């Protein structure tokens, strides 16, 4: 059977390091790095965070626009855009602390050998709708920080009081509960992920497939946290970097067919699927 190695260990290590840095970094460094805004959910309301995510900058434009923080904020937005244009959603798989929390929860579920909750086939399409509604709400900035589930999870983890908006707490609890049974369920409707995902189609990080080598064994779809159907189904196209892909590499790691799936970064082959022989 399958032993996870290499890339998964690296990914967990990256997620852990960035979790610590993004939650408590300012405690070590003295202050935040404020000219970088990341395409992940690292709450800007926390004073101890190492680097903020883009969210608050977009949500509360009036706070910095024409203010003293105008220049660093604009640079921050520029860095954010550059990062998503170059790497698409790569940060979701390796950096995002909220992604990490979700994955941690579902890995506890897996250790406990509890069944997962699969989203029924009929319900799946609605997730896309909700996702784009989230994006619109996010860009318009309507009360986003008050309801943001990330805040009610991240701030307490960073040792702070998170506020007491009842709906917000309820949503956060709901999402954590769901994430326990369905890996990264919030990522499916996450507005930052959705925005970064737009650039997945052209970014430097590519998931490739050699159709004829694929046996349609379905293993990749079963492990894909974003349930990207094409990764399993498609045979004609060679580039399968879908908008939803968070580059977790689970598909490549589990694929039992030699060279059927591979990952390319800057046109360099980084990872190739192979049969596990022992």
């Amino acid at each position, binding site marked *: *059977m*399958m032993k996870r190695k290499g890339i998964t260990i690296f990914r967990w290590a990256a997620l852990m390091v960035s979790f610590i840095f993004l939650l408590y970094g300012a405690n070590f460094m003295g202050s935040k790095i404020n000219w970088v805004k990341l395409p992940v959910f690292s709450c800007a309301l926390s004073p101890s965070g190492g680097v903020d995510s883009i969210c608050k900058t977009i949500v509360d434009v009036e706070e910095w626009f024409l203010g003293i923080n105008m220049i660093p904020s604009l640079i921050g937005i520029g860095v954010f855009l550059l990062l998503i244009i170059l790497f698409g959603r790569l940060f979701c798989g390796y950096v995002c602390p909220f992604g990490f929390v979700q994955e941690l929860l579902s890995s506890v*579920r*897996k250790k406990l*050998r*509890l*069944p*997962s909750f699969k989203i029924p*086939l009929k319900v799946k399409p609605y997730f896309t709708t909700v996702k784009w509604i989230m994006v619109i709400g996010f860009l318009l900035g309507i009360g986003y920080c008050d309801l943001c589930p990330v805040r009610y999870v991240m701030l307490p983890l960073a040792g702070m009081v998170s506020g007491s908006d009842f709906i917000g707490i309820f949503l956060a609890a709901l999402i954590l509960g769901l994430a326990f049974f369905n890996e990264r369920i919030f990522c499916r409707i996450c507005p930052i992920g959705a925005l970064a995902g737009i650039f997945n189609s052209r970014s430097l990080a590519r998931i490739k497939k050699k*159709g*004829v*080598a*694929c*046996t*349609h*064994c*379905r*293993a990749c779809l*079963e*492990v894909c946290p974003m349930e990207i*159907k094409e990764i399993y189904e498609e*045979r004609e196209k060679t580039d399968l970097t879908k908008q939803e892909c968070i580059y977790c590499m689970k598909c490549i790691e*589990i694929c*039992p067919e030699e060279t059927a799936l591979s990952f390319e970064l800057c046109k360099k082959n980084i990872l190739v699927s192979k*049969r*596990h*022989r*022992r």
Partner: protein
Amino acid sequence: MSEIYEERQRERYKRNVVKMAGSSLSQIDETAVSPVDISYFIGRLESIFVGLEDKENNAKIGMYCAMAPEEFVYALGFTPLKLCGNHPTATLAGEDHAPRDSCPVVKASVGFQSMNIIPMFDNLKAVIIPGSCDGKKKAAEILSQYVPIIPIPIYMSKDDDGFELLVETYYGLIATLEHITGRKMTASRLKKACVEISRASKEAYKLYEYLKSDKAVISGTQVMSVMSSYAYDDPGRWATEVKKLNKALAKVQPNSSKRKRKKPRIIIAGSPIGFPHFKIPYLLETLGAQIVTDESCLAGRLLYDPVLPDNYSLDGMVRALAARYVAPCTCPTFIEMEDRFCRLEQEKDITNADGIIYHVLRGCIPYDFELLYIEKWAEKHGIPVLRVETDFSTEDYEPLKIRLEAFIEMLERR
């Protein structure tokens, strides 16, 4: 009076099965290309079909068709037996219950139960019958006269809906097996079974790598017999034996041969080939061809796909098993043909094959349906295909030999 007659008939059946099995077994070694020892596997087959023994006499659950998940059976402490029949005598006996024109595998499978002469097939708690083709579906009812049956549906399409239905079906199968065996399925039991059977799967994969290599030190007929013996062995023990064999294959030197020219490399595709129906591989290899792989669901396809669960909850494993047994299955019973073409293309490229023998069991409609498209596909890829329609009998031995000889010659001249 009729009892005496039946007893005599059984004796006659017995003699014929033993004779056929014995002669098929003695042919296997003729195809050897190195001194490698496969006597463990030959010995198993011999003990069951020539010695008519059942040494362990343990409780078993039988299954027909490669789409029955043996992990469930193994996890509940029973030995899974693959019961698909391939003996001409059994086919004959089966004709008392199934129409003449139906598929020989179905006839032989029914035949073995009705003849009741193989002790290994006694002591069956139940048999699982996936409804993978019409013959199997109808066989279920006939078989229910002799043994408790568990029919399970196989859905026409491998799309998402079909898959989710299959997962539900597998849960139902677990419940039925729990009821029949009186044991409870747990995640840890199932995991153990999956791990054990995946050992077998991995060793089989390596064995086929040896067969596919340029300087194969084992013949295709030998490999197919090893695979055939899996059907009647404990998966764990079989895995250990194949591991030994693989180790030996790494060291053994090929027999010296006077042949100058390279042997034509041939893939056997089409209907299943299992012991003792080895006339095609045997003829091919004694006539100077080399079998590089096969897509028989009783040999090359049997253990090819691994079980790859996302997690080791019962649910995770049931889903992975449903995926393993059906999603990549190249059986022509599904409405999608593409998987099969891709598989063939991939095998052709990996093995550098020169030709394909397309085996159609007389009466096996699904495989015959696809022949036309396989031929078109082969033409596009520039690889010759020979369709061979036959059954388990040895009557067409001579004409078959002539055709195969001509095909091999043609490949050599290309």
